[in-house]
């Protein structure tokens, strides 16, 4: 059989396109397992549900250093968040992993520093955590869909899928994500590990999950439970009768960097005092 160069190139071209197309198609089908559907699987009856979970942070309720510590350590011990220390006992910033932490006013609300602000507000540390945005930048950039939005507004992540590219960390305007540079178990005390929650592994990014695993068994997030009464309020923003909705409607609350358009769901009540 004889074939001229033109015919050979045509056939070679078409077959390589077909072959390449098929390999792309099969490689992009990430989930090969059949999905489990109700009634085979169901939600726990006791699970707390909402259309849109949100949090109100009432800064006036945080009075002493101890209030912050209680709140933060409740979360971090429950979720096995490692605590890396330098030999002198200070936090090793290089390896630090944080889900909820303290930040200064100018870091929390940059661009909103007024000249003659009350010393109290200016010097007060703020409780900051993942904002579980409506339109999160981290989810847009994740190449493996390891981080994603749940229908109830929580920005969740699947540690099984995270490849540790850290795009989400670059994208998040709130610095809410931490990377595991080393095996996090090295920063945990064996006797303090919560056996009901996994740790993470080296090379994945982690952050606050609004305690999805606690909501599913009818408990409020660990920080909300441990914080001083009324300091952290958690509820359904879409429910007109919920406490968070009432405060957001009746009081003046501010959110972190709303101008970026990510739609944070953590509201800050600064002037505080008594409320509903």
């Amino acid at each position, binding site marked *: 059989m004889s074939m001229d160069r033109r015919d050979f190139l045509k056939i070679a071209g078409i077959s390589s396109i077909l072959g390449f197309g098929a390999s792309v198609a099969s490689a992009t089908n990430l989930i090969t397992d059949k999905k489990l559907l109700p009634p*085979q*699987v*169901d939600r726990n009856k006791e*699970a707390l549900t909402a259309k849109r979970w949100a949090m109100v942070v009432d800064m006036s309720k945080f009075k002493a250093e101890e209030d912050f510590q209680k709140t933060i350590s409740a979360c971090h011990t429950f979720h096995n968040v490692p605590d890396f220390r330098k030999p002198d006992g200070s936090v090793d910033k290089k390896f630090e992993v944080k889900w909820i932490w303290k930040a200064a006013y100018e870091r929390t609300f940059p661009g909103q520093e007024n000249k003659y602000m009350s010393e109290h507000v200016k010097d007060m540390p703020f409780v900051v955590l993942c904002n579980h945005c409506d339109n999160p930048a981290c989810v847009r950039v994740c190449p493996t869909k390891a981080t994603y939005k749940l229908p109830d507004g929580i920005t*969740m992540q699947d540690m099984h899928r995270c490849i540790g590219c850290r795009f989400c960390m670059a994208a998040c305007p709130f610095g809410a994500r931490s990377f595991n540079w080393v095996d996090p178990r090295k920063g945990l005390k064996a006797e303090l590990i919560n056996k009901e*929650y996994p*740790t993470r592994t080296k090379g994945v990014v982690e952050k606050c999950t609004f305690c999805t695993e606690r909501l599913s068994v009818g408990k409020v997030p660990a920080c909300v439970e441990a914080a001083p009464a009324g300091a952290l309020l958690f509820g359904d923003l879409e429910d007109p009768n919920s406490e968070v909705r009432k405060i957001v409607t009746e009081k003046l609350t501010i959110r972190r960097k709303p101008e970026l358009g990510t739609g944070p769901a953590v509201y800050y009540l600064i002037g505080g005092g008594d409320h509903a």
Partner: protein
Amino acid sequence: MKIYNKGLVFSGILVFAAIALFPFYFQGGRAAAKPEPKTDTPAIQEYEKLNGKKECVESKEYMRGEHMQVLNQWRDSVVRDYYRGYTSNSNHKRFNMSLQNGCMTCHSNKKKFCDECHNYLSVKPYCWDCHIAPKEEETKS
């Protein structure tokens, strides 16, 4: 037929064969010990006493062949779809879809239950990089 460097060639072939066939004569034709996963944890024995039989989420044969798919489906279901309860096809009981708080509460003998076969087959699932394996003391059989 003339072969150049006969000595080198044949001794080379011999050395190659010795290395390539090493696994066969090292084992001496015997098969390696068959893995025998154990399901004799206190929780399972308790269950057997109460119910008169051992049973898992699905039948033994199904679990033996498909537990990887089961675990993958459970993981996606819990992490991505909120579903945490699984109703068995075989005994219609509802189970908590959780490795740490489900499977391992009965199968608390990871070494004898998981590792026994995984080591034999040289598969290394990364479950335990994150998930915390149950403490093992009682499995000194």
